[in-house]
């Protein structure tokens, strides 16, 4: 039981400290900043201890560790593009506000505030997409996927073919493939197009793309997305909206991710013939309609690919002539009805795919071309397939 308050004591204590008029927001920013500093200091200490332990225990494995360094593959010279790796073991389940104001946007972590999507001003970011959840690719998980695909109606002969090739690839290859599927690229976003051969870019040091996570009711913490390692699956990605201080620069040459080189680096050797064939097996999609000069509806085979970017990479095959894919860059869905009756959902993505046409097809000339590829996720088959191809976004 709780005793009643003593009126005299209450009166005395009201004299001691009268009631206060307090603005709760007054202390929060400094508290968050202080907490971020504390956490960063702990991470640095942890990293130092781990690094020391690794040096002690695995000094002989320095070469092997170097082979897994993804950073050189994540850097791009295009300020409007961000290449990053997704963690297969971490997921983000927080909310993703539609728009943010980030007055302190810069390198490193910074705090942003929720804002209205209709607001304007500098350092305003809009939600572009969420990172795909990347499954941990292992031999058993791939076999399970194949079994599931067959149960869902995939061609048994094709499944048997893939399963046979899977048996012929090494564990090293599957590990390398698992690493490669974690790499993703986003670009475009906040209206980066400029006059021909140029593009508009943010001021130096201000990231065009950021990955954010919920911090408080009204704030999120963001980091520049470019070359960010281990982004949790489901993390909301935001693109910077143009403002008066953006500059026009010459569009840098496209930098494809050089997956072949990464695969060789990860493997420490050239892939074997079986491994190369297995890659083709995975990427097999039959395309019923072709042509890059206009929109075309495309049907996928029962076996698609496990990630949307991989599906988009298959689109140039629809041309029916030899092509070499250079890059596939995720784009925000346009703010208008989607073509082909596609629905606007998490299962619909848009990619800008750059590729080289090696032989003229009667409409397009040899050289670099760009396609805008919509891919959709088949809930029945749990795979991504090409759904719509166009030459304009």
């Amino acid at each position: 039981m709780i005793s009643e308050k003593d009126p005299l004591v209450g009166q005395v204590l009201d004299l001691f400290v009268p009631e206060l008029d307090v603005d709760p927001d007054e202390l929060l920013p400094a508290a968050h900043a202080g907490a971020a500093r504390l956490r960063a200091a702990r991470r640095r200490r942890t990293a130092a201890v781990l690094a020391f332990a690794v040096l002690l225990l695995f000094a002989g494995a320095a070469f092997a560790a170097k082979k897994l360094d993804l950073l050189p593959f994540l850097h791009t010279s295009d300020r409007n593009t961000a290449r990053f790796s997704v963690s297969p073991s971490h997921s983000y389940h927080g909310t993703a506000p539609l728009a943010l104001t980030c007055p302190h946007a810069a390198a490193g972590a910074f705090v942003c505030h929720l804002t209205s999507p209709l607001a304007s001003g500098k350092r305003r970011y809009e939600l572009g997409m969420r990172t795909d959840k990347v499954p941990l690719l292992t031999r058993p998980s791939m076999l399970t996927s194949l079994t599931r695909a067959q149960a869902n109606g995939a061609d048994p002969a094709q499944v048997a073919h893939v399963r046979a090739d899977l048996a012929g690839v090494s564990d090293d290859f599957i590990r390398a493939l698992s690493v490669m599927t974690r790499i993703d690229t986003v670009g475009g976003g906040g209206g980066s197009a400029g006059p021909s051969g140029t593009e508009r870019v943010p001021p130096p040091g201000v990231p065009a793309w950021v990955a954010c996570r919920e911090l408080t009711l009204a704030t999120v913490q963001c980091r520049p997305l470019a070359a960010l390692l281990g982004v949790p699956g489901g993390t909301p990605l935001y693109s910077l909206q143009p403002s008066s201080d953006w500059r026009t620069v010459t569009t840098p040459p496209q930098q494809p991710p050089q997956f072949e080189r990464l695969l060789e680096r990860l493997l420490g050797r050239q892939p074997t013939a079986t491994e190369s064939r297995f890659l083709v097996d995975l990427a097999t999609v039959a395309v019923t309609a072709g042509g890059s000069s206009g929109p075309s509806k495309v049907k996928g085979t029962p076996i698609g690919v496990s990630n949307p970017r991989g599906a988009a990479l298959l689109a140039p095959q629809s041309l029916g002539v030899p092509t070499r894919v250079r890059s596939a860059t995720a784009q925000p869905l346009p703010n208008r009805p989607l073509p082909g009756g596609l629905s606007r959902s998490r299962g619909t993505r848009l990619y800008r795919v750059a590729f080289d046409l090696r032989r003229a097809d009667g409409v397009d000339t040899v050289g670099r071309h760009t396609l805008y590829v919509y891919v959709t996720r088949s809930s029945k088959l749990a795979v991504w397939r090409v759904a719509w191809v166009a030459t304009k976004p």
Partner: protein
Amino acid sequence: MAELPSSHLLGSSRRREATAVTIEAAYRTRAADFLRVATAITGSREGARDAVQEALTRAFARRATFRGSGTVEAWLWRAVVNAARNVRARSPQVGEGPQADDATHDAEDEQRAAVRAAVAALPERQRLALFLRYYADLDYAAIAAALGVRRGTVSATLNHAHATLRAALEEEVLT
């Protein structure tokens, strides 16, 4: 402040863990009480701000250490009380209650001085229990959690504090 998505609020009520969202929600609900109790402990508004900010900083940074056995608010109270005690320990002049804003000496100031002296003369645990009971309206269980003592101890402590304070002040304040 921007309008908040309802998912934030739903999320905070569902989870039994100290996320930044639940900590901030608990702080916003109790901000005035935290500041008032911290002012009473540290003896100044400035010290109280430092203490509450320090408590919040540590709560945000170490939210993973929250074990979920009590409420996030109780956990915050303990952090605020400890931070305020630390601030008071670092600052030699505080501890006798907030000072008057100006140098005028009227009857009210004299009364306040008497109150400050009477409250300052109480043992620390009695002072803290009184502040939490009267300024924050915490029940015995919450006070016990904030002070790290048993619930029965809170009851006895408050009884002693009431008696001591009443005896010390009955003549000076009431007459």
